[in-house]
């Protein structure tokens, strides 16, 4: 019994990887954007990790003493070993479901465009991209020297083939290709046509794509990773992608590395792709090795891995600093934690109540308790590194119980004889469900319970399986819950629009709906910025959910590797082919 039941403990650990998986969305980034990302506030490593200086830096913490590097690492001169949660063996950019599979895809395949550190895109497989006046036609000119790792050239036909797999009726990957609105894709999906007229192969290296409707994210959506038709298309027939999926474990692509071996649950081996158009990678061998949260620091310490994603906490940073040879890249996570509320419930339908609940919760204390300096309280549902992020006219909702009480009074909730507020004879009692596997709830629940009791609100808390909470939310059978969202680089989202598929708060504001629609249609970045600034102002005022925190992620890297260009948007995988190894 013990063995079988205690497995639940692992839910906690396992969930980390699932949440990470949401971040692995390949979709959507703006075509062009200014840079206002906060990178590299250099920090003297002697300073304690907890000091204010590091606090706002969110950047690199340098290695201090390379002489402490263990021989296991220094003697491995031709190989980079990256530690990560085990990928699932879906090494195909169309079908992967976890961020770790995507790490493999990012080095084995290449796409028309690739992300830059600031979240904008640059051409990669495409030499140039022409966009028509009406924004409906996109012409990709593929590089002449682009080859797959087997030496065959990347052609427009390969692009067409890849699109056909996307549009296939049995395609079950994470993307929603029909929403790209390519002309004729619907017919291909239904099987009424065997071609997609919206994709025209002009010549070997030129392909023209026409969409029936455009949005700000159309270009990144169309800039797909390209699969070689000769390899993947041998047995493909319209209406059955099984033969393509059968090759998941043996990918062939046009990226800097080629996969040479995969042992499920253990490691993925790569060798440099000599045919890579971006130049042969500097390090001839690359290994992705499975590690877990429990031991990833130990593996770095012993030199068995060169890079790993380590949970950011004061303890861990201090520990890694103590090793001396580890460089840390601390990056804001693309996502945020929030307390969702059913905006249609009589408890929360008044925005004054929602504001009061925000004022009355000491969010800073919660964040400080769990993450120390490595997370921030947020007031809008957007990452601080996004171009759409704004603090102008945004109410910070500093902890202010008096203000909260005043707002509750205004909303008609008055204190009853037992100290609990009442309105229309109904007590202010909130049923709150929290996903138990998030470390934040350890601090959130006691602080929130106390804070709200002070306001005269009774909080009844339960901890529940994540899917169980979401089921209740979908069924609109909930009052308040705690969860977290992942964010895509583009601010367009369906979370806060009335008819949105992910509108977990039952929130509806026609003005927000209208602005979100405009923002999606607008291609000029400055105009988009203004539109989303308005959206966030409204959301900040309405507080459809209590926005709680944005945490950070950390890549801990052995200092022997130099030349990283990592940001929240541009993952370490994009630097693997160019980093240099320090001569020992």
């Amino acid at each position: 019994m013990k063995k079988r039941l205690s497995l639940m403990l692992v839910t906690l650990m396992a969930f980390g990887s699932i949440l990470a998986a949401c971040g692995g969305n390949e979709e959507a980034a703006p075509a062009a954007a200014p840079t206002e990302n906060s990178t590299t506030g250099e920090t003297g490593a002697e300073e304690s990790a907890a000091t204010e200086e590091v606090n706002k830096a969110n950047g690199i913490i340098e290695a201090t003493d390379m002489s402490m590097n263990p021989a296991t690492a220094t003697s491995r001169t031709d190989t980079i070993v990256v530690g990560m949660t085990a990928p699932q063996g879906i090494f195909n950019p169309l079908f992967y479901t976890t961020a770790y599979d995507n790490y493999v895809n990012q080095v084995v395949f290449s796409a028309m465009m690739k992300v830059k550190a600031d979240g904008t895109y640059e051409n990669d497989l495409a030499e140039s991209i022409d966009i028509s006046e009406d924004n409906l036609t996109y012409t990709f000119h593929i590089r002449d020297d682009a080859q797959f790792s087997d030496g065959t050239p990347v052609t427009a036909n390969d692009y067409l083939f890849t699109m056909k797999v996307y549009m296939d009726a049995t395609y079950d990957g994470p993307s929603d290709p029909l929403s790209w609105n390519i002309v004729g894709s619907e017919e291909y999906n239904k099987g009424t046509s065997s071609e997609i007229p919206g994709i025209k192969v002009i010549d070997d290296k030129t392909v023209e794509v026409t969409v029936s409707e455009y949005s700000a994210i159309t270009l990144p959506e169309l800039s797909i990773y390209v699969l070689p038709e000769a390899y993947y298309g041998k047995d493909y027939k319209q209406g059955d992608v099984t033969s393509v999926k059968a090759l998941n474990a043996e990918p062939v692509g046009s990226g800097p590395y080629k996969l040479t071996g995969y042992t499920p649950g253990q490691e993925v081996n790569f060798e440099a792709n000599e045919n890579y158009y971006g130049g042969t990678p500097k390090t001839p061998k690359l290994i992705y090795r499975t590690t877990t949260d429990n031991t990833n620091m130990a593996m770095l310490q012993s030199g068995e891995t060169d890079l790993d994603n380590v949970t950011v906490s004061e303890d861990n940073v201090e520990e890694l600093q103590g090793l001396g040879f580890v460089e840390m890249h601390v990056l804001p996570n693309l996502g945020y934690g929030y307390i969702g509320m059913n905006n249609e419930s009589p408890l929360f339908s008044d925005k004054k109540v929602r504001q009061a609940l925000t004022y009355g919760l000491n969010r800073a204390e919660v964040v400080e308790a769990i993450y120390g300096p490595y997370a921030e309280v947020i007031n809008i549902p957007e990452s601080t590194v996004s171009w759409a992020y704004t603090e102008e006219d945004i109410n910070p909702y500093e902890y202010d119980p008096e203000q909260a009480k005043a707002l509750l009074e205004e909303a008609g909730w008055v204190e009853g004889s037992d100290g609990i507020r009442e309105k229309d004879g109904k007590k202010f009692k909130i049923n709150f469900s929290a996903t138990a596997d998030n470390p934040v709830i350890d601090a959130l629940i006691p602080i929130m319970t106390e804070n709200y009791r002070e306001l005269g609100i009774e909080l009844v808390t339960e901890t529940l399986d994540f899917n169980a909470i979401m089921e209740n939310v979908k069924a609109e059978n909930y009052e308040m819950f705690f969860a977290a969202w992942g964010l895509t680089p583009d601010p367009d989202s369906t979370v806060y629009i009335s008819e949105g598929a992910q509108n977990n708060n039952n929130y509806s504001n026609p003005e927000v709906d209208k602005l979100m629609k405009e923002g999606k249609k607008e291609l000029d970045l400055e105009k988009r910025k203004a539109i989303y600034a308005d959206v966030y102002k409204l959301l900040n005022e309405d507080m459809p959910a209590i926005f709680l925190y944005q945490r950070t992620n950390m890549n801990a890297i052995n200092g022997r590797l130099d030349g990283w260009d990592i940001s929240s948007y541009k993952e370490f995988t994009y630097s693997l082919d160019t980093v240099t190894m320090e001569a020992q």
Partner: protein
Amino acid sequence: MSQFIIRRLLQMIPTLIGISIIVFIISQLVPGDYITATQNPNMTAERADQLRAIYGLDKPPVQQYFVWVKNMLTGNLGESFQHKMPVTEVISTYVWNSFVIAFVSSLLSWIIAAFVGVFSAQYQYSWFDKMVTLLVFLCMSLPSFFIGLLAIKYLALDLKLFPIGGMTTAGLNAGGWAYIKDVAQHMLLPVTVLTVLSVGSLTRYFRTGMLEVIRQDYIRTARAKGLKEHTVIFKHAFRNALLPAITLLGLELPTLFGGAMILEQVFTWPGIGQIYLASLNMRDYPLMLGFTMFLAVLTLIGNLISDILYGVADPRIRLK
């Protein structure tokens, strides 16, 4: 005897049907499905419907059940949503890794438990007995992940006796003996910890079983006859102390293949336990149901074996 076995095998059929129905109902009751579990922030309602149709989740549950059972009878457990390959392939990829450490550690725990249990009983309330008892409870007082971490910290990190985790050295490109040696080295620590965890309770059962038998009249008679002590213990007493052990042995069969979820995680061992857990979290029903049925069959076989062995250990028990 053979009649008994045949009857029991026949009984398995309704039992398995019962299990399959209950398990399927549970899978329907569990909140959420694979589509909601992926928590894709850009998933539109239309796309979710498309996916449900592709996976057959839009069909009525009764129809889904019969499709599943029909496929199962032909040896097809369906395709895992998460892994995008046949469930049987997923299971066979990972299950043997789990089996290797489970088998070795079971073997070790049974041997150790038998000896320690017997001596502990023979010298009841001696220092040896007391120390063993205390150690057993110490190991039971801490969760297994904790003991795993403890072992990693002291044995792997500080003393460097074992590798920290994984099943092979990264980048090892060896076959044959070199490969086996490498795996064996990586196995040592997980096997040690698994053994420490399971040997405790087994020791208690062996000790109690022996204590009971030692007090019986025929043992006194055997001693009175002037037989050597270890002849008395191992020839006469031990066999009769085996009954509880046989029961536990039968229960052990599914755990050999079930994987040790927590320790696999701690030691980064690529076993089936974590894969199964992930299938639950992601509501990957084909994998979850398929693996559950696989374990169910093993459970039934294990219990059948222990029922047969009762008769072997104690001929007085007539199999009917």
